[in-house]
């Protein structure tokens, strides 16, 4: 993997060591298979969709980073 950016690499990768390997689980959100990250407060943050239907990726409520209820 190569990063091609004018920003100093130290700046981009700062904090990489502290990034814990996040606890993720696979769930269904209104019929769409997705990978969510379980936060410390117990909430679920959408990491990515696992669906093969491209229309699912156009749905505004299924954008990576949103809190989802399961």
């Amino acid at each position, binding site marked *: *993997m*190569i*990063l*091609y*950016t*004018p*920003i*100093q*690499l130290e700046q*981009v*990768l*700062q*904090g*990489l060591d*502290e*990034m814990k390997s996040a606890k993720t689980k696979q769930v269904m959100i209104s019929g769409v298979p997705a990978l969510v990250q379980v936060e410390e*407060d117990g909430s679920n943050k959408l990491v*990515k*969709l696992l*669906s093969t239907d*491209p*229309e*699912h*990726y*156009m749905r*505004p*409520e299924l*954008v*990576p*980073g*949103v*809190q989802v209820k399961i």
Partner: protein
Amino acid sequence: MSNENRQGVFPFHPSQPIQPSPGKPGDDHQKHSDRNKDDDKTKASMESVKELGANNIPQVQSSIHCLSIVGQVEGHMVLPPQNKTTKYEHLIPQLVALEQAKEVKGVVIMLNTVGGDVEAGLAIAEMIASMSKPTVSVVLGGGHSIGVPIAVAADTSMITPTASMTIHPIRLNGLVIGVPQTYEYVEKMQDRVINFVISHSNVSQEKFREFMFRAGELARDIGTVLIGQEAVEAGIISSVGGLNEAINILNKSIEGNGEYVQ
């Protein structure tokens, strides 16, 4: 956590007052489910206000779709959270959906990126270049490094007068071991970017390489910064312009396809 405790969340006012519409008594069920749909929509927009700080504009059906590529193009590695990133694994199915959807007639790509993963950037650029629908890209603030091939991938590329593009060599910073092999690997990665840019724009290979390795322009690096008109003169970008020009060009090429209906 309740909404009141969160900063930046304002009381929600629906953009349109819910009005009872005259209709047949049998429509009640239909109306009810419509209202549920509206509730879902407002819920989704509330979520995006809360989580992303972005407010959903009342939905207008448009034949043009806008794809914005901002911050770092995130590829094979998840970047630390201080980076604003565009995730390519989400963009690629979106491009598939846009290509396939009959109601989408054209795509405008808004770029304000500081580069990122070479392969993710090239993947997005190849996807845009291979779309059958008219595409226009606009470089807004910056289209640096891997943003250059993404910008030239569209049928027509535009740059705002104040936007800049940094062209510099690809450097070794990945997790690659072995010195001679590594050198060749980086060279090959660089050739992939150069070949894509020269085959999708009017810049020559010699000129692009010269921009890449020019000394004395960047403070801590070799390379070139092209601002607005300079990128057009170099042959990388088609023309200087903003939103109005981009939408006009897109509408014209949609009309040319005989599909544009207003």
